[in-house]
């Protein structure tokens, strides 16, 4: 019906957007759950913001923007790890400092983009994404980066989970908190790059944290949380691509950006999840269980 008439699936930019968007939704679901459990949401947000410097630099140097986002996200990840991420307060401090420095670079590179090249759209594209403008040549790199996230998380699933649940328990099992933390940040960097490519560096947080945050409230098991995060992320991304495409007709030739729809849908899903969790009493404390030997 609507889709067939408007040539939705036959459009090349739509196909590219669907593939890259699907990658972004899946990887952010997988890594997002661990990021939130470890209390690392702020670090995830910072990595995404800082990656904008890499995206801006890639316009300047004429290199693959995915590499730009990824390079800067990894540099930031190493910076945070190096400055200290052990205690929560130190971690926030290190994250904030790296975030400030990174955004400074971003300001410089975007300024140079606009002044030395004639890419006036660079700033919007880097910061807020332009999904229908992603070149087809980036599909391959996006798939490789996504596979990297799945590989890392698949390999480290259990140690990462135990570390997220309680670092002391993990350390007692001989798990190196330092290595797990670093590898998790590397996987997060990969996910950030894919998300930044899809919906922009600044808005990437929404996809990284939102679906996972909503899913965690609805789930009792880790695998269940990842499943729901994927479902929410995919629904938001696919729905947004369709709405943005259709919005061309809704607003008489002025299509709204995909990123706006993604962020809005994710927000609505999160609100719904909070309400559902409240109504179903998922987060509420159950009645206490009496000790068996006390009853005797």
């Amino acid at each position: 019906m609507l889709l067939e008439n408007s040539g939705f699936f036959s459009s090349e930019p739509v196909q590219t957007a669907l593939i890259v968007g699907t990658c972004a939704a899946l990887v952010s679901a997988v890594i997002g759950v661990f990021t939130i459990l470890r209390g690392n949401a702020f670090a995830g947000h910072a990595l995404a913001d800082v990656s904008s410097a890499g995206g801006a630099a890639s316009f300047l140097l004429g290199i693959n923007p995915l590499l730009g986002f990824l390079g800067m996200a990894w540099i930031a990840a190493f910076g945070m790890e190096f400055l200290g991420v052990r205690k929560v307060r130190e971690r926030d401090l290190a994250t904030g400092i790296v975030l400030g420095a990174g955004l400074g670079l971003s300001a410089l590179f975007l300024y140079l983009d606009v002044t030395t090249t004639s890419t006036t759209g660079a700033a919007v594209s880097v910061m807020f994404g332009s999904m229908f403008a992603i070149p087809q040549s980036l599909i391959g790199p996006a798939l490789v980066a996504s596979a990297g996230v799945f590989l890392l998380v698949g390999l480290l699933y259990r140690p990462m989970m135990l570390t997220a649940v309680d670092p002391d328990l993990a350390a007692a099992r001989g798990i190196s908190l330092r290595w797990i933390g670093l590898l998790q940040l590397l996987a997060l960097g990969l996910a950030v790059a894919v998300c930044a490519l899809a919906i922009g560096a600044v808005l990437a947080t929404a996809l990284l944290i939102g679906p996972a945050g909503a899913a965690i409230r609805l789930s009792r098991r880790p695998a269940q949380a990842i499943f729901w995060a994927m479902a929410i992320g995919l629904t938001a991304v696919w729905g947004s691509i369709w709405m943005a495409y259709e919005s061309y007709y809704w607003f008489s030739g002025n299509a709204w950006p995909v990123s706006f729809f993604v962020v809005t849908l994710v927000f609505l899903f999160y609100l719904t999840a909070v309400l559902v969790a409240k109504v179903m009493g998922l987060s509420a404390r159950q009645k206490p269980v009496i000790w068996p030997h006390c009853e005797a």
Partner: protein
Amino acid sequence: MSDPVLSVAHLSVDLGGRSILRNVSFDLYPGQLCALIGENGAGKTTLLRSLLGLTAHRSGQALIDGAPADQRRALVGYVPQKIAFDPDVPLRTRDLVQLGLDGHRLGLPLFLGRKKALVDQALHAVWAEAFADQRVGELSGGQQQRAVIAHALVRQPRLLILDEPLANLDFGSANALVTLLGTLTRTQQIAVLVTAHDMNPLLPVMDRLVYLVGGQAATGSVEEVVQPDVLSKLYGYPVTVLRHGRRILVLPDAVAEDAETCTASHVPHPEKAD
């Protein structure tokens, strides 16, 4: 008697140039519960960390089943201090226990057949079946403690170490936990090491005592260790040991002189205000 599970001999540990533990020695056998008693800063946590192979020692040795602690992690179950799970963590009690079995392994947790039986067994051992499918963040403090004990037990360790398990528990939960620890020690024939500020709650189940003061230890049975001469030597100043029913109170002498008249006149006073 069989070989000791844990054998600590002349163990000394320095941290940042400061001497934290000096010449600590004790053995622990299967089926024994040992209390590690000391105030804040006495070196309890440092001793535990050496037994977990997380802190290097300057001299002496800590052997678990005859080998250095860092080679015997699989034989040690550990319950850390201050357990507080976030209410939103999507993890059931049963999942936490399963992470005790395979949390250090790489790859995805796919084949659960035999593991489920082990997990159920550990849940049963700590009387946690009733909340096995609840999220750990929804449990009470005492229940979370038992969930973590099951997490530590599921690999069938020979030595179970608990760091201040009675802190933050109300009297009822604390008593129940002590009963549970006594039962586990006997039925599973494991060695259990429990740290605490106050020895009194553990007296009914305690087989041995390591009394730490300023990094030095007196070890043995309660009768051997909690004696005025032994403890005075350890503290470096005279102390008095008061016994009231099944309660024990250790006091520096200046305070104890007044307290002694209290017990002499049978004033029901000596409950340690801790």
